[in-house]
């Protein structure tokens, strides 16, 4: 039965996490990379909530997911601010061009 077993949710979460990881590694557009990070955090949230449904005596998993959502919001705000500052510096959003510390 679909959706009544924790394995199904964990499978979906692992596929989503892998998609996000591949996108983060392969894409060079830093906006898309930030979106891929959000995708990975979402996948982790899904796995946490699914495991919490399996062990439903307490709500540790949902509490973790709650804090992850808060941290992800802060991360998106600061990350996008960094992207804007970098764009102001180099007129580009490609992370390949963030090499000022190299030279």
């Amino acid at each position, binding site marked *: 039965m679909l959706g009544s077993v924790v394995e199904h949710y964990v499978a979906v979460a692992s596929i989503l996490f892998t998609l996000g990881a591949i996108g983060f590694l392969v894409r060079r557009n830093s906006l898309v990379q930030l979106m891929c990070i959000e*995708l990975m955090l979402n996948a982790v949230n899904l796995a946490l*909530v699914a495991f919490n*449904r399996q062990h439903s005596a307490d709500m540790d998993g949902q509490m973790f997911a709650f804090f992850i959502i808060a941290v992800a*919001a*802060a991360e998106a705000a600061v990350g996008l601010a960094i992207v*804007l500052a970098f*764009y102001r510096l180099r007129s*580009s959003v490609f992370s390949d061009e963030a090499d000022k510390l190299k030279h």
Partner: protein
Amino acid sequence: MNVGNVFFALCTMVALFGGVVTVAAKNPIRGAMGLLASIIAIAGFFLELSAQFLAAIQLIVYAGAVVVLFVFVIMLLGPDARSTGGLELNSIRAHWWRGIGAALLLLLAAGVGISAAMAAPVPQPFADAPLDHGTVEAVGKFIFTKGMVPFELTTGLLIVAVVGAIAVARGKISPADQKKKPVAPLKLFGGPVVSREVGPVTKGGVS
């Protein structure tokens, strides 16, 4: 097949499709829309896992705040935010080992998933959860008793993030720019649009 199965299948399809669009879209606006679809599908999963409070929070914070922030920034950057295929392809060719690493990661994740599925040959369906599992009352009680300290620390984190985001994104005006006469404001109604120095010249523009 009951309603729950159909709902799970629908959410799975939307979440995976949204994830693929996020990763593969050349235009970041499309990527943001894919992320939005994925987030809404995950909120659906939360509903099915009897986490109503988290489903609401997911929609409010992610779909309502984070994706809108992404769209704001993409619109602010304009055409420069778009990925030019050539540049990204060149960089992928130059860093082919990243692709290999990503493929290995995919294989590893698939292997872990399959071995986990093998280890539990008979999947146990969910037992009945307590009636108030995941409601606002239950999660709130849990957060304000067991999770009190991290909850308070989160407030500090959010304050620091807000101040840091403003400080980083505002930037400084160089002394030379301060002496310069401010640029005439963009005319929105009537008259030709004054093209800015940065970015490609707009074709036609708003008349």
